[in-house]
C-alpha cells in the first residue's frame, strides 16, 4: 500500500487539527519540519470534523482547512463530516 500525506502549517489553529488527525488515524505519523507538519499514513487518512470540534470546543467547517494546507498526496473526497485521502492501489 502506498503512503498518503497532508502537510499543514505549524500554527495555533493547526495544533489541535494535527492532534485530531493523529487521534483518528493511529497508523499515521507526524513529521515536524521547519514551519510545517507533514502527516504520513499508509493507504488512507481520514480527517473528522467531530474530533476537531471536540478538541477546539467550537463548531468547525472542514473547508477552513484550506487556510492552513501546504500540500497533500492521494485521491481526495470531502464531505461535511470527513475529508479522506486514499490510494486505490
Amino acid at each position, binding site marked *: 500500500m*502506498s503512503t498518503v500525506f497532508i502537510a499543514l502549517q505549524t500554527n495555533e489553529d493547526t495544533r489541535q487539527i494535527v492532534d485530531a488527525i493523529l487521534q483518528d488515524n493511529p497508523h499515521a505519523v507526524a513529521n515536524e519540519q521547519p514551519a510545517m507538519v507533514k502527516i504520513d499514513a499508509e493507504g488512507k487518512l481520514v480527517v473528522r470534523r467531530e474530533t476537531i470540534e471536540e478538541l477546539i470546543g467550537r463548531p468547525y467547517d472542514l473547508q477552513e482547512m484550506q487556510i492552513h494546507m501546504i500540500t497533500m498526496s492521494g485521491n481526495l473526497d*470531502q464531505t*461535511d463530516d470527513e475529508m479522506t485521502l486514499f490510494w486505490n*492501489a
Partner: protein
Amino acid sequence: MDMQVAKKKLGLKERYAVMTRGLDWKPSYQKMEDIYPYIAYEGIKIHDWDKWEDPFRLTMDAYWKYQSEKERKLYSVLDAYVQSNGHLNVTDARYLNTVKLFISGISPLEYVAHRGFAHAGRQFPGPGPRVACLMQSLDEIRHAQTQVHAVSNYNKYYNGMHDFHHAHDRVWFLSVPKSFFDDAITAGPFEFMVSIGFSFEYVLTNLLFVPFVSGAAYNGDMGTMTFGFSAQSDEARHMTLGLEVIKFILQQDPANVPIVQRWIDKWTWRGYRVLTLVAMMMDYMLPKRTMSWKEAWEVYFEQNGGALFKDLARYGIKMPDCAAQIALEKDHLSHQAWSTFYNYGAATNFHSWMPDEDEMAWLSAKYPNSFDKHYRPRYEFWREQAAKGNRFYNKTLPMLCQTCQIPLVFTEPGDPTKICYREVDYKEDKYHFCSDHCKKIFEDEPEKYVQAWLPVHQIYQGNCFPEGTDPTVEGFDPLAAVLKYYHLEHGRDNLDFEGSEDQKNFEAWHGQATKNI
C-alpha cells in the same frame, strides 16, 4: 410571536451541485463548435462533462471567504516583517539570491498561469471544470501579486530585482522557465491542464514550493515564508484539481489514454528540467539547508510519484520513461547547475560563489557517490584561483538545447564525465539537444520548437543589444551591451557574492541593527 426556525443548510454535496451544475443552456442560434472552438482538435473525447467533480466541493462563495482570510493573514505578517526590518534577520545575505531567482524566474510564471487557466476555463464546455479553472486563475494572479509585494521590500535594499519582468523576458537562463510556460499556454486547453494542472502542480510543485518555503523559514525570511505558505495553501487545491482532471479525461474514453500518456511523458521531463534551478537553490544557495535536492526528489517524486503512478495504472497510465534518467541524474544535477552559474556569473541577475569548507563537507555527506570524485576538485581549483584574484568568468556563450533551452551542461546518463550531445536534422537545419527526452519532444512537434527564441542565437543575430547599438564599431563589447539590454548593471547586479554591494550593505546594516552607533 412566531418562533424563528433556522433554515436547514444544504449539505456540502448539495451546495456544490447547486452552484456548479445547470448553469448552462443549450445554444439555439450558435453552434457549440463555434462557441468552444478549441475543444476537439487535440483529439480528446469527452462524453459527459457532469462526471467531473471537485473533490473539495469548493463553491465560489466559500472560495472568496477563505481567500480573503488568507490575504488578511498574509498582509498582517508582511507589515510586521517590514516594520521590524525583518530583512536583516536572514541567515546571510547570500540567501537573498534565492529571492532574486524566485522573483525573476517563478513569479512571472504565476501571472502566465493566471492567463492560462482563464483561457482553459473559457474553453471547457463543462461548468464543473470551468469553476475550478476560474478559482485557479484567480489564485495564480494572487500569487503573482503577493510575491511582487513581498519581494518589493527586498528590492529597496538589495540588487538584481529592480526589473524582474523585463529580465524574465530577456535574460538567457530565464528563457528556461519562460519557454516552459510559453510551450504550455500555446498548447490546447487539455494539454495545458495536463502540463500545468497535473504534471507541474501535482507531480512537481512540491519540489518547488515545499523546499523553497521551508528554506525561507529556516533562513529567517519571514516575508517569503508567508507568501510561500499563502500560495501553497492554494497549491493543495490545485494538485487535487490536477489529479481529478487526469482521472476525468482517462475515464471518459480509452482513446484518450495514449494522448495523455504522451503529454505526461513530455511535461514531466519539461518540468523536471526547469526544476534544475530549484536543485541548485537547495544545495548551494540556502545558507542553512533543509534537505538536499536528492532527498527531496526521493520523497516527493520517487515515493509520492511512485504511489501516484501505481494508482493511475488501472487507467493504463505508466510512470514516464524519463524517470530512469532522472534517477541517474539526482547525484549530479545541482552540482552541474551551480557550476554553470559559477561559469556565467558575469551575466546573471544574482550573485554566485564557491561553497565554503563546511558546505563542501555537507555536500560530500549528502552526495557520497559523486561530490568528492567529480565536483570537489573543480571547486577547489576555482576557489584557489579566486583567492589569487583570478576568479573564473566564462565569457563565451554556450550551446543550448533546442527544447529546454538549458546549455548542454548535462552529462551522459550513467557517465558523469561526458557531456550528453544529441542532434536531429530537420528540413534545412540541424537541431541540438541535451538529452534523448528533449530530442523526442522536438521530434514529436518540430514545427513548434524550430521557432524557439534561443538567447545565445538571438545575441549572435544582434537582437539583444539596446536600440541604436552598433556592434561593428571598434572594440565593441557584446557582454556589456547585452547586460544593458537586460537592464542589469555590471559590477552591481552580477559577479561573485564576495565583494558585492549586497554583501557590504548587509554587513553594515546588520551591524547597525545590533549596536548603538
